[in-house]
């Protein structure tokens, strides 16, 4: 089975990063790491590949930089990577991202495309759905358990009240949620091998896509700081006040 996994390199969340003063885009350092939530997608892809003797191809749109994040995913066991690194794609919105990724995926026959629910630095959360439209395959979102058997994929779809069982023919696109599998830690061997796995770098024009970034970030504001809480002094009856407050906020 041919599995494509969409992954994103993002600035290390452990170290603060800057926004460009003019266009408000994230200033991307040379060393970017694999978005933690994408480890789930890679793990799902690897498990499917192991069960079917398939291959996992990573697909990523970002400045390549040191490729650290991509190597992290390759170290987990993915076979190869395709990167779309193109200055004209800077500041891409979700639609452009979906067009680019779909075009890259569409170059090869694939059976399953795996994507995360949303990225940790952008949070648009719509790219998988857009891609499924462009690739003309069903989108199975909020997948928390995935099985493939005889050309049919079955997932448990997380809902607010429980889960639904959804099946689909292949090819299909899966948008996975965190917590469905425990992503593996790369082995030392895997880390060493990652260096020599094939990484293909493409531009938008290689894919025949005309970038058309329709989005502009006009303003960025700090999150309002939290207001100081109310302090209830305990005079023996404080619990009544607390119940009252909780009722006011409709918590109880």
């Amino acid at each position, binding site marked *: 089975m041919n599995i494509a996994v969409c992954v994103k390199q993002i600035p290390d969340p452990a170290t603060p990063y800057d926004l460009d003063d003019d266009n408000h885009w994230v200033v991307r350092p040379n060393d970017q790491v694999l978005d933690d939530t994408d480890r789930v997608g890679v793990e799902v892809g690897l498990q499917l590949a192991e069960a079917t003797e398939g291959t996992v191809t990573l697909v990523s749109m970002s400045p390549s930089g040191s490729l650290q994040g991509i190597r992290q995913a390759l170290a987990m066991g993915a076979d190869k990577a395709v990167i779309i690194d193109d200055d004209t794609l800077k500041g891409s919105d979700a639609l452009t991202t979906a067009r680019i990724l779909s075009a890259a995926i569409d170059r090869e026959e694939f059976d399953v495309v795996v994507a995360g629910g949303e990225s940790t630095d952008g949070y648009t959360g719509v790219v998988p759905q857009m891609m499924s439209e462009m690739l003309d395959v069903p989108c199975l979102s909020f997948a928390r358990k995935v099985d493939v058997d005889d050309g049919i994929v079955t997932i448990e779809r997380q809902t607010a009240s429980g889960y639904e069982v959804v099946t689909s023919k292949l090819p299909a696109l899966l948008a996975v949620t965190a917590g469905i599998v425990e992503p593996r*830690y*790369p082995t030392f*061997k895997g880390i*060493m091998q990652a*260096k020599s796995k094939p990484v293909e770098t493409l531009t938008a024009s290689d894919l025949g896509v005309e970038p058309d970034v329709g989005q502009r970030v006009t303003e960025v504001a700090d999150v309002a700081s939290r207001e100081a809480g109310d302090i209830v002094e305990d005079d023996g009856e404080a619990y009544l006040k607390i119940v009252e407050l909780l009722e006011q906020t409709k918590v109880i």
Partner: protein
Amino acid sequence: MPNYTPPVRDITFTLDTIADVESIVALPDFEHVDLDTIDGMLSEAARFFSEVFAPTNEVGDEKGAALENGGVVTPDEFKPVWQKLVDAGWTAVTGSPEYGGHGFPRTLGLAVSEMMTSANLAFSLNPMLTGSGIALLTRHGSDELRDQYLAKLISSEWTGTMVLTESEAGSDVGALRAKAVLNPDGSYSISGTKIFVTWGDHDLTDNIIHLVLARTPDAPAGTRGISLFVVPKFLLTEDGAPSKRNSVETVSIEHKLGIHASPTCVLAFDDATGYIVGEENKGMRYMFTMMNQARLEVGLEGLSVAERAYQHAAEYAKDRVQGRAAGSDELSPIIDHPDVRRMLMTMKASTEAMRALLYDAVAAEDRHLSAQDELERIAAGDRLALLTPIAKAWCTDRGVEIASIGVQVLGGMGFVEEAGAAQFYRDARITPIYEGTNGIQALDLVMRKLPMGDGAVITAYLSEIESLDGPLADGGDALAGVREHLGAALRTVRDATSWLAASNDPQARMAGATPYLEMLGTLAGGYYLARQALAAQSEADSDSWMAAKVATAHFYAVNLLPKVHGLAPSVTAGSEHLFAIEDTNLG
């Protein structure tokens, strides 16, 4: 439980500026190591040890190892983590590729060990001792022994121990009495009771390979009559699988101040089958391969526990609000109080100094084993010999001190187990004791290492420190304080070194050994931080992390380096005053 964030940036910086890892990786022995993969390796190791290994630290301390039905049982949480460690291959980093290892330099192995040890000191002792055993068998074992044991030890499917100590033979290993009698088939029958065997038994693997010192019947007395044997817990079948139980019994395990998860065993050998390593009576020499490596690793424990205590204390000091700092009209986090600040800076500066010293020593080991040029190999071996006792003793003494300061930063909560600082302190306390007490290290430094090459080795090291004066002078005002204090400390240490070299009273030199080791360690720490400050200076304006490196060197130079002057009189005081009081008046 306190979190652990591996200090990958300082590790990388130290690998670059002190160990010069680039030149090590360039050696032919390490042709297969790609400089570009090092960052990836360190960041993945950091993730693994902080996310998988570190969470076992507290529970290991609480539950500890237990002896049940003659076998040691580890806390339940340890088994899956051990399996993940083995699967990931983090214990095979430096092992020989011939036996499934990755053949990486020891320098990079130490970087991985640092994170493992910080994450869980007690647990890390198992792979640590196994690693020392691997080094020993790789260098001194026969082809047969290597083929039988190395692959499984390198993969950590089996673990190794180091079995020297007996009740009457601790610091004086030469006094040991365990005996070894040659059997007709070439194996030996080993008998005797050994104590304090770290990870001497456990339930994590299906075999344990003991490396045991014992004496053949007509061996000469003392260390010249000691031989070394491989004694597996389970004897191997023809095709190398563990089968029959060897007669090694775990009699008891110790209840200890710290490292509760590490079983410290009394082992009884009763005509156990053992296989000799190398030749009879040369066991001490072989064991030194193991001990030298283990000494650096124990020094590393000082660093690792200090790093953990430092992170924990800094975190606490940012949150804990108490009193008002001068000039503040609000209540202040304690990190704003100068005295707390001093504690944290001492922790930071000492920890980074330790890291540099250890990584320099281990880099010397790599060069000693792998440099192309014979003279470079010899010089590196001498440097390693000089630095080993300092790395072991100075770093473990600092480890205890820093863990103690960590308790102090937390105030009352530091003394309360729940907060976690107390465990670091308890765990740290063993490190100055085992692997040759720090007193023995000081003797090794003063009585054996200083006289090496008629004083040429220490002289070369001190000259190297002196040669930093020029670059520091070029560093301008920012490094003027570092230069001044480093120069002054160097003069004091030189005087003390000359005094020791000139003294022909061994008793007096032994009396001054421990303060001398502390002086030299303190000077070395200042030297390494000064080198790092020079390397960081050009980026200090644009990068606060680099600016902190320069400021840390300055803090160390002004606050810690001057301690060498206070130590000088006790180095040269002689021994008479130590014996001025009759034994009856002591105690």
